[in-house]
């Protein structure tokens, strides 16, 4: 029997707002499969997002869901997790939301290494506001605010996360749909701040302005640029040019924030040795 996604979807809340061909739906299905694999309790799972097309995801999910302000998901989620560490806290949002307006909250959530999983849907554009360039738009590409080509250099979200202190960082793509749930499962199981970047597509505001004539072309690009980390080990720099590594990129044991704070409580109560 095929997988039943409905049991995780809020009754009556579909259809979703996403355009045909948008990768966000593929990510949501991956998340649902991951939650189902882990058998997380809906009442004890908070899904928190910012603002943008990607950030509409929690509204469809039958959990405790929090659709916050643009860029602030990590900060709201930090409050939830800090106040109630028993909750499973999952964050999601777009690349613009997470790395531009939300950049500061993102790096500090990484630094604290608070036990949450942040799924960043990187479609390299501001979808919801109509295709303005984001910090992840490739240099030279067209966006509604870079009609002559984007002069800005882009962010590498995974490197940013690793540099800022996240203890688990993975990357997948919307093309490699079957991998998404596995990466999310591992991210949720990891104790600490986990980042799962999913390269996805926005055919409506990015694809049309750039070289992609169809959703299929956009998906094919994701297929072509992705190289699993294992495979990359055997490739030389020339072969890796223009490629993007996928899989688990970084995993490290590190003190987790809520556990550290529990020690603060012990010390304050005078029970620590």
């Amino acid at each position, binding site marked *: 029997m095929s997988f039943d996604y409905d049991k995780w979807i*809020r009754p009556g*809340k579909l259809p979703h707002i996403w355009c045909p061909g948008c990768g966000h739906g593929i990510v949501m299905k991956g998340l649902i499969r991951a939650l189902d694999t882990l058998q997380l309790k*809906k*009442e*004890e799972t*908070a899904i*928190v997002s910012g*603002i943008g097309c990607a950030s509409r995801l*929690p*509204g469809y999910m*039958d*959990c*405790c*869901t*929090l*659709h*916050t*302000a643009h860029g*602030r998901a*990590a*900060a*709201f*989620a*930090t*409050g*939830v*997790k*800090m*106040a*109630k560490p*028993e*909750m499973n806290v999952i964050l999601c949002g777009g690349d613009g939301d997470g790395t531009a307006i939300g950049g*500061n*909250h993102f790096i*500090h959530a990484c630094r604290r290494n608070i036990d949450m999983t942040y799924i960043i849907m990187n479609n390299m554009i501001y979808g919801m506001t109509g295709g303005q360039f984001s910090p992840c738009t490739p240099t030279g590409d067209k966006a509604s605010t870079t009609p002559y080509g984007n002069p800005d250099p882009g962010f590498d979200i995974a490197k940013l996360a690793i540099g800022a202190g996240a203890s688990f960082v993975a990357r997948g793509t919307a093309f490699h749909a079957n991998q998404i749930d596995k990466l999310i499962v591992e991210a949720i199981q990891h104790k600490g701040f986990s980042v799962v970047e999913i390269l996805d597509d926005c055919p409506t505001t990015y694809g049309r302005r750039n070289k992609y004539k169809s959703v299929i072309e956009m998906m094919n690009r994701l297929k072509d640029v992705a190289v699993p980390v294992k495979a990359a080990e055997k490739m030389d720099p020339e072969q890796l040019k223009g490629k993007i590594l996928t899989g688990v990129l970084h995993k490290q044991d590190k003190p987790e924030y809520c556990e550290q*704070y529990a020690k*603060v*409580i012990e*010390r*304050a*109560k005078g029970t620590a040795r």
Partner: protein
Amino acid sequence: MAKKVAFMQGNEAAAHGALYAGCTFFAGYPITPSTEVAEVMSAELPKIGGKFIQMEDEIGAMAALIGGALTGAKALTSTSGPGLSLKQENIGYACITEVPCVIVNVMRGGPSTGMPTGPSQSDIMCAKWGTHGDHPAICLVPASVQELFEETVRAFNLAEKYRTPVMIMPDEIVAHMRERIVFPEPGELEVIDRAKPTVTPDKYKPYDTSFGDVPPLAAFGSGYKFHVTGLNKMADGFPTTKAEYVQAEEERQVRKVEANAADIMKWEEYLIDDAEVVVVAFGSTSRSARFAVDEARKAGIKAGLFRLITFWPFPEQRLLEISKKVKGFISPEMNLGMCAGVIKGCIEGNAPVLGIFRVDGEPINPGQILDKIKEVK
């Protein structure tokens, strides 16, 4: 047994007031002259198993505050002018999502960093108009260390009772001065907790108005699952753009505070009955004003003091009544006339409003107020 007495700063008293009210969560970002609130909370909260977190900025602090409050915690942040500006978007978010929380904003000089340690009373308009859209505003303006403690307890009560952010805004003088404070015993001051749902989780709607203008709020992680969004929403919390829902919900959010203004508003009248000149003042300025009123009485002038304890909702009706019997009002304030403007707006031109407006970082002294009282003919 004798009550616990201490000699402490206003900011410290605010923190202790929060703890008395049952606050278990603090998220903040340091800014003078409010830092002592955070410092006391960082020391006291872990002793009771509560949580303190210093966030990366005020935007993050306000966001974390709302996240914490949604898990059922009574949540506090503290800040000052520029920090309040940064918090505003998320304060608006807390208004529309109806999440109780308390913001101590210590008013200091100037806009932006202005005069970091100089006193002012210039954030009162931010408290009402700072965030976008129509939203409820509750703002308390205590005048002593004791009152800062007690009003902080009340701020939590109002936040919980009306499911909304509440601001408590001491000016820098009240926040930093040291005074004797008598701690109320547990149980002596009323402590209100938010209404929790009585329906089963499958029936729960976070904005179900069949429970009145302030629907019960479940906590994340308590067995209830629901959706919270800053978009205009329906009873179940889900977004809507349907005109009738949007209009009704926005009106309800404002109404739940305005229709209960009598319960929220608090002020003190001193020698008002026969007064011909009424000084309207709040915070540290009201202390100078009281002294000036006493001096005026000694000099045979019928002066009185109307001391605001809540700034928002503003006691418009009472001031309108008083305006029918007096020759004039004096509004001494550490800004360029914000309170005077609000008074003028509600007294329908019945009496002149004379201002003493100082923004030079110096307190307004009794002599200045007395001189102004003498000007009213």
